[in-house]
């Protein structure tokens, strides 16, 4: 076999050294009636054949390169500088394990330490962990933090209906054994307008552990949550803001607004769309909550030669030490994706990230302004937005998207799937990857729909 280098002669010698006759003798503890099943799998392919088969599968897809894409809804097509993948392809990074042996893992450890620093800078927070699986699970883990902070005595979580539907679904799954109630989010009835402080504030009470909002929200809207956060704090509750990291290149940070936890989907920071994963859940908080935070954490120290160095620290929070009393069961993080985002942020830097954020903002606003000039298409919300916006359409969204696809355009997200009250509402995302010509083409095809 390709990746098992022992020769028949070596295997013989090794069996002899072990003191058994044949390979089968090593498996005597396995119940005989189930031993050595015949697996109904295809015969092995050589690398050449496998490469051809995979290429054929890949070619059966249409991609955001083949099509012009205005699809976002939690995963965004951004430019990834070439240098990012060159670093990720270093075997020293991607074939290393979790840095439990710091003497020979300083590359990973310093890279995570810097990632933590960059994420704190971006969110305006004080502490970042080494990452979670994705934005959805990072939101779910924010509940674990709040639950631990109040030692399970507060049992209510208020969540805005304009948090990503899949994040809310994930949260529901996570809390089903925890005895928590969720409030603020009844998917059947919401129209999406309820995110305003006026709607959520009455729900926050002395039993509320956590309030969760999104920024920009699922509809792309940007709100200053300062007042809502003050209300929550007055009731003693914590507030988690799920943020888009590209938007934070331009917008006021949730840290400035007073958030206790800032999480989000890090995919826009140099990670390919890759049909939904692997992505990056970032998780930042205030230093006062660090002992309640889940996940790995890197801290600075010195080695016995007086050199500055880094180690995994506060590990007593984690499952391999605390077992059932750990802050979470998380073990694997998204180490390599965290590295991707750190390389991306260090390449773009202070000016580059702002540039990308502004490009997204300007292009999205141009697109929105052109679209609402078409008869029958109107804004759903009269609220500032970042790079994504909801449009009320004159026809069902699936018809519009089918028509767009015929013209090589990947349309937006059909909001009616998750919000029945938002039937015929299309969520359109625009990034720096969309040229003016592409936007104009979108507007033109939408105009045809309007005329039909």
């Amino acid at each position, binding site marked *: 076999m390709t990746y098992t280098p022992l020769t028949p002669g070596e295997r013989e010698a090794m069996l002899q050294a072990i003191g058994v006759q044949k390979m089968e003798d090593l498996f005597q503890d396995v119940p005989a009636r189930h031993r050595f099943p015949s697996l109904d799998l295809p015969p092995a392919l050589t690398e050449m054949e496998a490469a051809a088969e995979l290429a054929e599968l890949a070619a059966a897809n249409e991609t955001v390169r083949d099509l012009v894409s205005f699809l976002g809804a939690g995963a965004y097509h951004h430019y990834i500088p070439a240098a990012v993948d060159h670093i990720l392809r270093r075997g020293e990074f991607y074939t290393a394990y979790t840095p439990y042996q710091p003497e020979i893992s300083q590359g*990973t450890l310093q890279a995570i330490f810097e990632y933590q620093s960059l994420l704190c800078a971006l969110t305006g927070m004080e502490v970042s962990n080494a990452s979670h699986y994705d934005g959805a699970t990072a939101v779910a883990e924010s509940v674990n933090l709040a639950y631990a902070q109040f030692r399970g005595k507060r049992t209510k979580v208020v969540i805005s209906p304009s948090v990503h539907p899949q994040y809310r679904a994930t949260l529901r799954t996570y809390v089903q054994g925890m005895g928590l109630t969720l409030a603020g989010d009844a998917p059947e009835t919401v129209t999406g307008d309820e995110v305003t402080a006026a709607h959520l504030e009455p729900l926050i009470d002395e039993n509320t552990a956590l309030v969760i909002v999104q920024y920009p929200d699922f509809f792309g809207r940007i709100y200053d949550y300062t007042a809502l956060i003050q209300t929550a704090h007055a009731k003693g509750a914590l507030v988690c803001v799920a943020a888009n990291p590209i938007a934070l290149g331009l917008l006021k940070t949730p840290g400035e607004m007073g958030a206790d936890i800032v999480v989000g989907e890090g995919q826009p920071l140099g990670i390919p769309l*890759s049909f939904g*994963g692997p992505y990056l859940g970032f998780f930042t908080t205030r230093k006062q909550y660090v002992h309640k935070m889940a996940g790995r954490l890197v801290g600075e120290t010195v080695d016995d030669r007086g050199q500055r160095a880094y180690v995994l620290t506060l590990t007593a929070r984690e499952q391999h030490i605390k077992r059932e009393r750990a802050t979470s069961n998380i073990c694997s993080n998204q180490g390599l*994706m965290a590295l991707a985002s750190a390389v991306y942020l260090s390449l773009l830097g*202070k000016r580059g990230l702002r540039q990308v954020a502004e490009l997204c903002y300007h292009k999205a606003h141009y697109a929105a302004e052109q679209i609402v000039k078409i008869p029958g298409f109107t804004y759903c919300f009269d609220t500032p937005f970042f790079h994504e916006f909801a449009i009320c359409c004159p026809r069902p969204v699936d018809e519009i998207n089918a028509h767009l696809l015929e013209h090589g355009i990947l349309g937006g997200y059909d909001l009616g799937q998750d919000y029945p009250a938002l039937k015929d509402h299309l969520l359109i995302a625009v990034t720096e990857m969309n040229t003016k010509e592409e936007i104009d083409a979108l507007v033109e095809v939408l105009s045809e729909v309007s005329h039909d």
Partner: protein
Amino acid sequence: MTDELTPKVVEPTLYELSSPGRAGVTFPDPDVPRAKLPDSLLRADLPLPELAEVDVIRHYLRLSHFNYSVDGGFYPLGSCTMKYNPKINEDMARLPGFAFTHPLQPVETVQGNLVLMYTLQEWLKEISGLAAVSLQPAAGAHGELTGVLMMRAYHRARGDDKRVKMLIPDSAHGTNPASSAMSGMTVVQIPSDRRGNVDLEALKAACDDTVAGLMLTNPNTLGLFDEHIEEVIRIVHDCGGLVYGDGANLNALLGIVRPGDLGFDVMHFNLHKTFSTPHGGGGPGSGPVGAAAHLADFLPSPIVGVIEAGDGETPPLYGFIEPKQTIGRVKAFHGHFGMLVRAFTYIAMHGRDGLRTVAENAVLNANYLLARLRGVYPIPYDRICMHEFVAEGKIAGSDVRALDIAKRLMDYDFHPPTNYFPLIVHEALMIEPTETENKQTLDAFAEALIKIAEEAKTAPDLLKSAPHKTPFGRMDEVKAARDLVLCCWAPESYSNQRE
């Protein structure tokens, strides 16, 4: 002394390398009119570093040189299956046809992805002997959480609400009790017997009508296949409980035995262990979950299925299906698709016979190392092992500890084994060579450990102060936890007023 007060900097941080005005990448000016920015919602400052591309590349290159990796050498880290990661897998995951697909595209435009996922589900079903698979969970622990929530949902769907106890052997990974606790279960620890098996009497005593199930790693973290596996499973089933299989050690079982045939009800796969998707310095992993027929309807949503049957002319249309009694979604989108592509490539290149060869060679390598080290280090459970074994880092006539032996191995250019786990062995050294290592490497590793056993007696201080030849020495872990420097800039200047 200044030297002791001011640590020597081996590699500056990104912030220390930053110089105002530099940029590694720039973007074009907008080709549309500029819109008015929302003044009240803009941030004042963006404290990111400023570096040229060459600065960034050199920084990360230098950092990479500080890492030990599978590409660089032998990594016998017990329980982690640090096998070689074939390069073709990396290339396949990066094919533009995969990498540039959006997770919410119409299914008609991503049939390649869906065929791949469907086929991988089928293959994992066949390998495990289970009835259905969801590829959604992101890692092993995530798969455990999924599986435990499924067990909980199964009992509740039958009106059996009192099953709140999860039985977990004392040799289990810490994720098992943590996942159970997150699902609202009470953990009951089951001891191991003298031969490293689940203690049957203790198991029987713990089994009653409040037991949701047993979480079992088999082979266990001692590297031993439970000699009474079918009886263990029967005892749990007889009290109405379910058996969860922690797939961390599946590498030993490929083509050897199928967990489903043994009676496991639900299990997770670690694609990043068994199927060679790389560990990435801590992740991403991928932890699909398989279920026997009676649990299939509880799998997390969605899974890939045929949504329109094909006929002779047209192929079937694949899409997403929600299992009838699903526990719900465990993450956004459809799982770690990039890792699924790698695992698919790996299984395709091994086929029906190659997977058994993988397990056989993994077990052979472990037993060979065990044979070479027997008599040098104590072996607390000395049986034929599976893909790994546990030795004790104790040398007669020396006070060195497992930690010292582990650190000294670095001077011989080997990654140490897992140490101090499993918890039931004092001074544990848990060694998993994997099938991708050749005999020369195993011999060199055994000889290094034999030499270190000698050094433990003749020059113990050499071990206690090891490593010596690595770029960094032992760390002051207490200082890290006490000072809690978690950022390389001063976030205080940036934080708001609330306290």
